[in-house]
């Protein structure tokens, strides 16, 4: 037999072999997918900024200096390198506040997504696995939750309890579970009747074992994608609540609060809202790019957009 007619099935050569799971595959996809790579780089940088804030920030973010109020950023004629992004109305260094603000956004985003992830995934997995009446009750809960206007309810509750970092985190965690539940439910429906789940059931494995060991790992990829997008969502909502005065309270350097504090100066010094706003936009954009990218590479058909 001739070598040029090697017996490879038609089509086998059209697609590079997809070998190796886990990290190598992720790394390859990361390099191939531009949005994912960009998102990952920005998110990594901002996470580093949050972790290393005490070393990165040039000044104490809470230190007021009334002699140095509203110094413009360095690219401005009146700016100076002492305060690269200027100072706010109380003379606090804007760059330092911005860097510390990363901590607040990321903390609220991650913890709120974690709480809502636990609630939503539990409800979704139960609804998908048991179906029937359990599904009906959970779907009803979901419909009810979706009918509640999130911003309004969060504002009202925060005002009742008193706005603070913890209140906002808990409120968002308790409100944002809907997408987790939807995705967990449909993903569970797909794996519920898979052979490995049936095998576990036939072997008499306890329910929690089936749900945690068999079902959860197989829907985790979908849940991680939702978690990414929900972190971004929680960060945006925290900024909104803080901007409206019912979220994180002064003097904490929340970006939403910085925009609210700068609002009365924005006509003459637009940078006071441009800087924290752009930071917020960049962070949310990067997390969304990461989430979209993860969805693309975890979807079997590759990019679906």
């Amino acid at each position, binding site marked *: *037999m*001739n070598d*040029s*007619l*090697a*017996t*490879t*099935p*038609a*089509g*086998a*050569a*059209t*697609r*590079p072999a997809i070998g190796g799971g886990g990290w190598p595959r992720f790394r390859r996809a990361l390099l191939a997918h531009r949005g994912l790579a960009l998102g990952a780089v920005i998110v990594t940088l901002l996470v580093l900024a949050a972790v290393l804030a005490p070393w990165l920030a040039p000044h104490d973010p809470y230190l007021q200096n009334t002699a140095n109020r509203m110094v413009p950023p360095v690219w401005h004629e009146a700016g100076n390198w002492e305060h690269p992004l200027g100072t706010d109305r109380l003379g606090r260094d804007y760059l330092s506040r911005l860097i510390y603000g990363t901590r607040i956004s990321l903390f609220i985003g991650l913890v709120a997504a974690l709480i809502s992830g636990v609630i939503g995934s539990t409800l979704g997995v139960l609804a998908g696995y048991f179906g029937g009446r359990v599904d009906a009750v959970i779907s009803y809960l979901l419909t009810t939750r979706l009918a509640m206007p999130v911003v309004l309810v969060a504002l009202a509750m925060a005002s009742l309890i008193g706005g603070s970092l913890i209140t906002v985190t808990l409120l968002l965690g308790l409100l944002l579970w809907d997408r987790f539940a939807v995705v967990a439910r449909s993903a569970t429906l797909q794996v519920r009747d898979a052979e490995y789940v049936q095998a576990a059931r036939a072997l008499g494995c306890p329910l929690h074992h089936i749900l945690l060991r068999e079902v959860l790992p197989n829907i985790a990829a979908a849940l991680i994608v939702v978690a990414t997008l929900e972190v971004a969502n929680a960060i945006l909502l925290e900024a909104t609540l803080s901007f409206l005065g019912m979220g994180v309270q002064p003097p904490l350097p929340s970006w939403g609060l910085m925009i609210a504090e700068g609002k009365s100066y924005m006509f003459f010094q637009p940078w006071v809202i441009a800087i924290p706003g752009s930071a917020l936009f960049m962070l949310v954009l990067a997390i969304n790019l990461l989430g979209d990218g993860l969805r693309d590479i975890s979807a079997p058909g590759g990019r679906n957009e």
Partner: protein
Amino acid sequence: MPLLTVEELHVDLPVDAGTLHAVRGIDFHVERGEMLCLVGESGCGKSMTSMALMGLLPRRARVSAASLRFDGIELLDLTERARSDLRGARMAMIFQEPMTALNPAYTLGNQLCEALLRHRRVSRREARERAIYLLERVGISAAAERMAQYPHQLSGGLRQRVMIAMALMCEPDLIIADEPTTALDVTIQAQILRLLRDLQREFGTAVIFITHDLGVVARIADRVAVMYAGEVIETASAEALFAAPGHPYTQGLLNCIPAPGKTPPGSRLQAIPGVVPSLVGELEGCAFRNRCPLAEAICETPPPATHVGAGHVARCHFAARLADPARPPQPEVMP
């Protein structure tokens, strides 16, 4: 003059690993009013050929041919607009999946009348009357009421009948039927085949019937073209092909069908061993030689088109020997 002449048709698709040569320079023709069966395994390029004839290939596909002549018109010289004037009017198509080939959002009447209203100057009432007439002709009862129904209200067999009626709306010269019975139950398959055959005779329409099933070919074909790995390796009248195949691939396919009375009960069904070569990149010589029981050194050169009978052409170095009905060569060893 034949209705359709295909000379040196190539279809190339760019893929990740290079270029997929889906159709590699094929020749065949279709006479007016005849039923030509295009036979081959999946992936042999038969569907690509039909899409190239209709002009329905995706934009990234590259089509070239020495000649693609339909009733004296060079199809590849036409603008897209001029080709769309032919589609549905003079050449129509029936697809494999009746369940998805009809638009769920519109009534059957709407979708039936569409082609006629597009191509002919007729009133809505005339179009409707023709649609009802054709629905009755394809064996659908209560045709007038069916016109107001939606595709989901019909079974697969009924939908395929509707597709046939739809193809006949403008009285086309040529219908391309791409595996129209593959997705149907066996009993329904037989009904649809008979229907197609009857209508084809009655309306004098030429049909290119694409299938992988030689049993179907035996029932309906006037002539047969066998495709393998993007090439037409044998064309013959149906009788000649079944009597004395001129290509070892065709012979292998025929051996795969159990013949009642001939195949001893309990004997194992034959299959052609080996796999189809990849169509990405260039292929030298005979594409079948890696699976062929007769392969010799000469098979590394392109096999010539050998005339082994009237209108019977096979692309094999041993075609003359094979097709001689007096001495059918049996391959010594089947690996």
